[in-house]
Structure formats: C-alpha cells, structure tokens
C-alpha cells in the first residue's frame, strides 16, 4: 500500500468546560502520514499546540483498538467518521485526501453534557444499566455451566447484541438523541438467554423508564443508529425490545 503525506484543515469544536458557550476553531495540520490513525493526527496537532503555548484539544480515548468504546468524535457529520463499522480510533488517515477540510464535533445530546472540547459525559448509560442491565445472581454457587444448554442460534444472537461497546454513536447519530439501540442491545443480550427470563419484564420496564428520565429522546425508527454503529448492532433488537415492553405492559405479574 502506497502512502503519502497530506495537508489538511481541521475545524474543531472547542469548549472550555460544561458552562462555556464553545465554538469552532480552525487548524492547519501539515505533513500528516496517511498511515496515522485519526487520533494520532490529533496527538500531532496537540504537540504543536503545546509548543505554541496553546491549550491542547481534549478528547476521550483509551484502548485505541476499537473495543473500549471511549473514543467519540463526530467527524464530517457522522459519528466515528466515514468508514463503515468503525470507531474513531481505528479510522486512519487513508480515508482523507490532500487539502481536505475535516469538521470534528463532540457527540451532541442533552443526556451527554459536554465536559470539555470533544469530551462528553456518558454516565447516563451506566445508570441505564443500573436500572436492569444485569442478571441478579450472586457470586459463588452457580450451577455447572453445561447444566444449561442454550440453542446455538439464540446464543449467537445474544452475543451479537452483547457486542455493543457503549460508545454512544447511536445517540449522537439519532435526530431524537434516542438511546434505544444501546438499551435494546443490552435487553436483547440478556432476554435472549434462559438466564435472563426471570427479570425479563422488569428489566425492560425499568431500563426504558431510566432512559426517559435521563432525557434521551424517543425512537422513530429512522435507523441512523444502526448505520453508524461500530459493532453493527442491528435495529432488530429495538423490535425485540418493543415486543418485550408491550408484553410487560399488558401482562403484569403484580
């Protein structure tokens, strides 16, 4: 693969803290190897900003392997940038060409307040999990793992939903800032398994209630969430959630 060094213009959202109004700043970045990752380009820019006694751009990142879910940039109007099924940290500069202007913003959603620059607060996701995203089993006396055979098709579907990395791209892409893809992926992961059955109804009721409380919007089946999901979580999970939610609402055990 031939690589070149390219020059780019970056328009980046800068916001000192959660109360600051914020705005775009423009930066010229020169001589960027196309072998770099998108975040490595930010590293280079930040080193230059520090040398010029300017404040470097704050952004979330950790594993840089596409699995921790921490990186979160809205690049040219799309969460995680132009590549399919990809996270910001795995986006490489081959995706861009000489002279291009790239616009970088944080996730935008009322439930994800901005902390600084491109960093947002996603603790609302943790609270949705706290509302029911688990199976209530204490440590210690679980039965033998093979005592409970699970159909491979169901296990695979559960796994596909459990692949969610909790990055929040689905919320950022949604015109309603809905967290339905995130929530439904977790509900499907657990509700597709026999272990998840006892809490199936309360799980969806409580998680949806928490989502509403956090200020996420409603789902209007636009599908933008699925289109940008780095782990290709399917909106079939939202249909599964709606079914479980309806059943739970109609047939109460209490």
């Amino acid at each position, binding site marked *: *693969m031939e690589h070149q060094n390219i020059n780019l213009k970056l328009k980046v959202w800068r916001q*000192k*803290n959660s109360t600051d109004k914020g705005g775009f700043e423009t930066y010229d970045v020169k001589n960027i*190897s196309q*072998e770099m*990752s998108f*975040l*490595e380009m930010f*590293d280079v820019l930040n*080193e230059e900003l*520090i040398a010029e006694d*300017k404040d*470097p751009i*704050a952004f979330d990142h*950790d*594993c*840089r*392997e*596409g*699995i*921790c*879910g*921490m990186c979160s940039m809205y690049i040219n109007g799309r969460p995680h940038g132009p590549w399919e099924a*990809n996270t910001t940290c*795995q986006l490489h500069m*081959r995706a861009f060409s000489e002279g291009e202007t790239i616009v970088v913003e944080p996730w935008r959603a009322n439930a994800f307040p901005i902390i*600084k620059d491109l*960093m947002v607060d*996603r*603790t609302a*996701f*943790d609270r949705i*999990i*706290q*509302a029911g*995203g*688990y*199976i*209530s*089993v204490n*440590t210690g006396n*679980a*039965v033998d*793992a*093979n005592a*409970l*055979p*699970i159909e*491979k098709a169901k*296990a*695979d579907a*559960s*796994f596909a939903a*459990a*692949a969610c*990395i*909790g990055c929040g791209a689905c919320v950022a892409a949604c015109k309603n800032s809905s967290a339905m893809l995130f929530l439904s992926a977790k509900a499907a*992961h657990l509700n597709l*398994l026999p*272990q998840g059955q006892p809490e199936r109804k309360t799980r969806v009721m409580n998680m949806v209630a928490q989502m509403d409380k956090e200020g996420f919007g409603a789902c209007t089946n636009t599908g933008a969430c699925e289109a940008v999901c780095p782990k290709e979580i399917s909106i079939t999970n939202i249909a599964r959630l709606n079914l479980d939610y309806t059943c739970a609402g109609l047939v109460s055990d209490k």
Partner: protein
Amino acid sequence: MIDAKIPAGSLDSKWTKYKSTCKLVNPANKRSLEIIVVGTGLAGASAAAALGELGYKVKTFCFQDSPRRAHSIAAQGGINAAKNYQNDGDSTYRLFYDTIKGGDYRAREGNVHRLAEVSANIIDQCVAQGVPFAREYGGLLSNRSFGGTQVQRTFYAAGQTGQQLLIGAYQAQERQIALGNVVQYSRHEMLDVVMIDGKARGIIARNLVTGELERHFGHAVLLCTGGYGNVFYLSTNAMGSNVTAAWKAHKKGALFANPCFTQIHPTCIPVSGDHQSKLTLMSESLRNDGRIWVPKQQGDTRKSIDIPEEERDYYLERRYPAFGNLVPRDVASRAAKERCDAGYGVGTSKQAVYLDFAAAIQRYGKIEAGKRGIEADAETITQMGKDVVKEKYGNLFDMYEKITGENPYEVPMRIYPAVHYTMGGLWVDYELMTTIPGLYCLGEANFSDHGANRLGASALMQGLADGYFVIPYTIGNYLADEIRTKAIPTDHAAFAEAESKVRDRIHMLMNIKGSKTVESLHKRLGKIMWEKCGMARNAEGLKQAIKEIQQLKNEFWSDVKIPGEINEMNPELDKANRVADFIELGELMCIDALNREESCGGHFREEHQTEEGEALRHDDKFMYVSAWEMKGEHEWEMHKEELNYEVVKPSQRSYK
C-alpha cells in the same frame, strides 16, 4: 526473608483448608466495614461485585469515564478453565502444571494451584451472569486449544472474550451500585495511599474533571490497577494504563516483585512511524493457521508474493520442528527479533516478519471441496479456503486491513513482537495482601501467578479468580479483626498530610514550565526501555539504561512543559503524573534485570543462553522472587522469597 503465608498441608488441600478455617465477619458488622477498590477491570469489578454482595460498603474508582472501559476489555483469545468438558485428559493438576511450567518455574505452587482450582467456578459464574460464550450446536460450551497447550480448555466469545467477561463483571458491579452497596467514582485517579498506624486506611483521589483532590476512607484498600507495560511507551496497553496507584503504594512501603518480568507478544502489527501511539495485538490464535517466515536472502526488497517458496525461511518450523509456529510467546518473540537483527526483516522498517495464510487457505479450500464432493478449479478452491479463514479470523483480518491498508487474504500479514503484559507487580502473600497491612493487590497489578512468562488465556482467569473467589475469603480474615475500628473521619492528620503532599507535587509539576512535552519525554523513556530492557538484555546495556533514566528523570523534573490549569480537565497533567512514576519504575526494572543473572521466561539475558541461543535458567542461584523495597531516590533493597517446589520438578523447557 519474607513470608508468603502459604497454608500448610498438601498442595491440593491448602485452599480448601484455608477457606474452612479463615476468620469470618458477621453480616451486621460487614455493613459498617468500608472497602476501597481502585481500578474496575476484571479484578476490580469482580471484587467490587462480590464484596458488595457480601454486604460490605464498597467504593470503586477508575480514571476512565465508565468502569466498563477498563483494558481487560481488549483481551481477545479466551479464558482457561480445567473443566475437562472435552474429555481430553484435562484436570486441575494439568492446568496447574502447565501454568507453572509456562512461567518457567518462577511462580508459587500454592497460588497457582488455587488458581487452577477456582478456574472452573469462574466459567459457571460467568454463564450464570449471562456471558455469551461460544457454543456448539448441541447447546453446550465450545472450547479451543490456545497457546500451544495439549488440551482444549479455553472458553471464548469470538475474538471478544475480554469484552464479554468484563461486561459481565461490570453488570454485576452496576447491580450492586443500584442496590446501594457500591458507590462508583469515574474519572477519578488515585494519587496516594493514606496510612494510619501502619495500616492502609484510605486514598487520596483526584477528580479529573474538576482537578479537586478528595479524601476517601476505607478499612481496607484493594489495588486492581493492571499492568505497567506503558513504561515502554509503545505497548498493546490502553493509552491510560499506568503504574501510578501501585507505585504510590510502593513508595509507601509495599514491596515490588519481579519488575523485570515483562511479556513481549509475538503477533502484533509493526510500528509504522514516529507518530505511532500504541501497538495492536493480533490474537495468538492466528498462529494455529498462519506460517511465519522471512526471506532467505538478507535485505531482500522483493514483494512477499514475488519470493518463491524455496527462498523463504520458515524459521520457527526450522528451529522448533515439534512445536513449529506454536512455540510459547517468549520463544516466538525472540526468534523474530533474531531474524530481524540479522538483517532478514521485511516491510519498510525491516522490523517485521511475515505471517502467511496462503497455505491454510489452500488446505481449507481443498477440505471444503472434498466435503462437498466437487472437482473444483484452483480459483474456486482458493475462494472456499478464504471463506473458511474469514469465518475463523474475519474480525482480525478486518482490523489488520483497517490499520495497515493491506489485504491479508491476498498478501501475508506483517507482524512484530510488542510489549503486552507484565508478570511483575506488587508483592502479595497468599491472601493477596501486600506488605502493607490492609492493602491488597489483585489481577495483573500483582506478581503472583505467572512466574516469568504468562500462558495465553490465563490473564482473564487470574483477574476473575482474584476478584470473585479469592478476595471475598481472604479479606474477611483481615477485617474480622477490624470490626471495632470505627470509620476514621477524613479530617484526620494522616489524610491532611497525604493530601498536601499530593497537592505539592502537582504544583511542582505545573510550576516547572519547561520546554519538553510529557509525550516526548515518555517516548524517550520507552526507547531506552525497549532497546536496553526489552526482548534481550545485557549487563552493559542495563547499566547504561539506569544512567540514562536517572538523567531523564532530572530532565523531566526540570524541563517538562504542562499546559493548562490544575483545577480543570487537564489530560496533559494526568499524563505527567503517570510518566513521572513510569520513569522511576523504569529504573527499578533495569536494576532487577541486572540482578537476575539468568534467562527465564520473558527475561532474556544475552550472557545466559545455551549454544543454540535458548534461554538458560540458573535454578541454583535464582529460584526466588525478588521483592524490592524503596529506600530513597535511586535506592532499593532486595528481599528474597525463596520458591520451594514440592510437587513439580523444574526442568529446562524444550520445544524442539
């Protein structure tokens, strides 16, 4: 001599006996006992969940924005357990033996046997929590072999085993948060341990969003803060992985054991340039099907596909006919380095070797054609073979292509070894307690179970064993004597003093206002460590490295440049705090490597090798854990913990 407090009795009865004789805390008292857990990876999250379930009051801390981000999530391959579901002869003893041998006879028998014993419980527990492990069509769990073991004992969830296990532990932790037993502090970094009357009684943590320092009391403190691979700057660790919490404990008196034992993983994507910020691992499972080679001709500049078969050197198959491409990690890594150093490396940097799937594609293609009973042409066979490889390794191939821009179905992957895991860590006894009473260390952050080299699929096992099944027992043995200790108010002088020292250090860092960025200094530290304390070490290089690191430390503390303010989100300041600790650790690693005049596991001293270039252990002189006590700046004293092998008989490892 330090005492590991290994229970008496036969190896397989020690843990059972310990569990039935250790002290217990009654439920009413548990409610008033507070425990601090730092780090929320597999060890921290599982410990927090298990202790919360028991009724203790738990506080958990992580520097990321959510406990679910911890780097355990990136583990790909799997988790070992002695379940013997495949009826292929596995047992607790075999898992114990493989781990001891894989660790090149530098781990404790008692700890490792306990690990093997609880391994089966981990799988049961995870399945009960809903961890979606891979399954067979009959609905039962699937296993694969991993890292060259002779049995199939590895449980997995595609290439995302770490993610699924961590999410399981995270959910268990979140459940305890919802129940009010655990309080989580995200975007918080521990910056000191608070000691009162010789016991760990709390921590000073910095809120990374506001920059404020906070005091937190605990009857006991658990450090579950992971490994220190980022001392090399480039590693497969996450960007934020650091040694700071463990290092603060070390400076307060906790011994640091075997710091030079680092694992270099053979199959990582090579460095592409100076901008490189981290390295990405390609799962070891690729070696099950990929063949590793370099050109036979030095400095060959032809493209891989233009080099004919007879001009390729499959050096692992040549050197190790019995294990071939499946030799353990340390052996495979050194062999790659040897070829590259000798001028046979490939790619633009010449610091890479090929991992080639062409033969596997043909082999699988032919099998498929046979299965379907068709006479296929070469093109169809290749296509069917590619489909099989895609099913097995598709996600890894996609990741490789994203990073390198090359299609590994068409051209061989380029790989090179990279720092991956650190076997060394805080010294702990059988109960996982450090040399500071009340201060525990779990998971990768401690040194206890992997000796000088960790086997594949054993890190996840150890993290969860420590958190779910060991600490709930051992901490009770300590806290049973603490039930009369009332929660100590955080206006106690010890908290005030610790906080003011942390504050002074931060101010000192911010006031240097020098000219060099944290990143540039960290890169230089990494270069020293990689070149002189990396895959191969020698006395001269290590002595030089110690001098260079001491000099770098002076430079750091006189010329580092940190932008921004203290009381705001300031990632550069966070990083500076961590790099300052890495520099001190780097010096200790070199001292330890210099002291250990033998080659074992991941530690290869060039002066100590066989005629064929294999690692040469000196069991007569170095059958011990080196546990270092900090005495002052640049000054450490070594304490030895002798390793007594009562059951296993150490032998020279051979994979020929």
